[in-house]
């Protein structure tokens, strides 16, 4: 039987910053003239995220997301859009890899400043059932980057 989570872990999960991004998501909406558009579902819960990306040279110039989801998936999407805007695809790959490590419980990632506000999601690693929620937007971004590459 899995151990019920403790109150302290619940409090660490639902940090103010996560609830703030959930309530007031950044970069939510539809992007005009997007170069790549991805629709991705979490089959576990039926939640869905749409992601639209505009590229400029090697980097992501602008991006917006849409959809319904839980606080973890929407906060992750919102923070992701803030962090990757204006970054090169190499920089984004590095951040994405680091974020995955954070979700797998890598404690060094939790203090890595390259992850910016995403570090607020470090508590998710204690909830294996919720890691998929946090990664949904990132999987959509990976798919959008692959669309451009092909």
């Amino acid at each position, binding site marked *: *039987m899995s151990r019920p*989570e403790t109150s302290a872990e619940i409090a660490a999960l639902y940090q103010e910053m996560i*609830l703030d991004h959930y309530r007031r998501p950044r970069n939510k909406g539809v992007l005009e003239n997007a170069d790549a558009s991805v629709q991705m579902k979490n089959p576990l*819960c*039926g939640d869905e995220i749409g992601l639209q990306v505009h590229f400029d040279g090697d980097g992501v110039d602008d991006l917006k997301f849409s959809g*319904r*989801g*839980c*606080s973890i998936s929407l906060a992750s999407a919102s923070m992701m859009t803030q962090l990757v805007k204006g970054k090169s695809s190499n920089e984004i790959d590095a951040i994405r890899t680091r974020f995955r490590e954070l979700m797998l419980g890598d404690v060094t990632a939790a203090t890595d400043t390259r992850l910016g506000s995403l570090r607020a999601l470090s508590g998710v690693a204690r909830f294996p059932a919720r890691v998929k929620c946090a990664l949904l937007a990132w999987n959509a971004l990976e798919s959008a980057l692959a669309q451009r590459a092909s």
Partner: protein
Amino acid sequence: MNLRADFPLLAGSPGLHYLDSAATSQKPGVVLDAIRDFYETSNANPHRGAYSLSVRATECYTQARLDIARFLGVKDAASLIFTRGTTEGINLVAGSWGRANVRTGDEIVVTALDHHSNFVPWQQLALEKGATLRICELTGDGRLDLDCMRELVTSRTKIVAFNHVSNALGTINPVTDIVRMVRDQSRAITVCDGAQSAPHLSVSFDDLGLDFYAFSGHKMLGPMGLGGLIGRRDLLEQMPPYQSGGDMIEFVYDDRTTWNVLPHKFEAGTPNPANAVGLAAAVAYLDRIGMDRVLTHERSLMAMAEERLAAIDGLRIYGPPIGQRSGVVSFTLEDVHPHDLATILDGEGVCIRAGHHCTQPLMRRLDVTATARASFYVYNDEADVDALLAGIMKARDIFGYVPA
């Protein structure tokens, strides 16, 4: 009714509030003992050996079928086919009767209340055969719209599939009324998903008038991996086998094979007598409680929970009134996503289901992606309701609910 001590997992986990019995039930010690006893005293491959141990295994398996058939009101126990569960039972009907009888232009009626396991097999059969899938819509309070069904069932209809009790909302459907309507208006067969009724209601297959009824043992205190399909003997005898292999044959010639009698024709391969014995112990346990008391107990807990839930601002309960439901309270809380709610409740030791409940067509019609579902069974008590409510209030605190 205080049965918690009968369930080793619950007895060993004080502070755990298990409210997900619609997904799977906990198992009483008598079920675990019966399975262990089979392996310790009677284990051999049934129907095979000439030696006495194999005979004993066969007797255990046969007796378990008789006990489970009696519990579900089936006189002809050979028309109870053991399967892995409800899903396999429905796929058996779709794959065997469906493939043999459904043709281009035919129609199959399912409902918007069905679990994917009683929806997808029919959708796929229709696609394969060029038949048309028709979906019976719901009333505003989550019951089947029988007027809609009356319009859908015609002489073109070959199959009408529906559930006895909805896993997502708990709605109890009027099976005998539906069967009568289908008989009056068509020559269609009726296929009923009984996964949520066999555990909670007194079910008599012979009185319901159905052609097929599928159920899962693990939702009714039995072990995982064993359930059954009950069918009308004349239909089962006409149907081709679903899977072929050992045990289901009579004679195998180089160029053809003849089939064993019921129920063996549909039970290819080594059967699962240990789990059948376990499920027989489960239905004996339910019989000792009495299915009327099971329903009364669940309804009293649901009423208690619902009265308190209804008092919470922004909490919405789905489905018809309690008198037309069994076991399930499905709800949403303002803008707190059901997954967040389930995580916070888990922190309080409360296990609920959050998600689409394998009913995406229903979720679309309710215009939600997910609901939170608390489901009750024989071992639940008032302390579980208290913990559920305390957890919901905590979720509201975390998500910063501001009283109006």
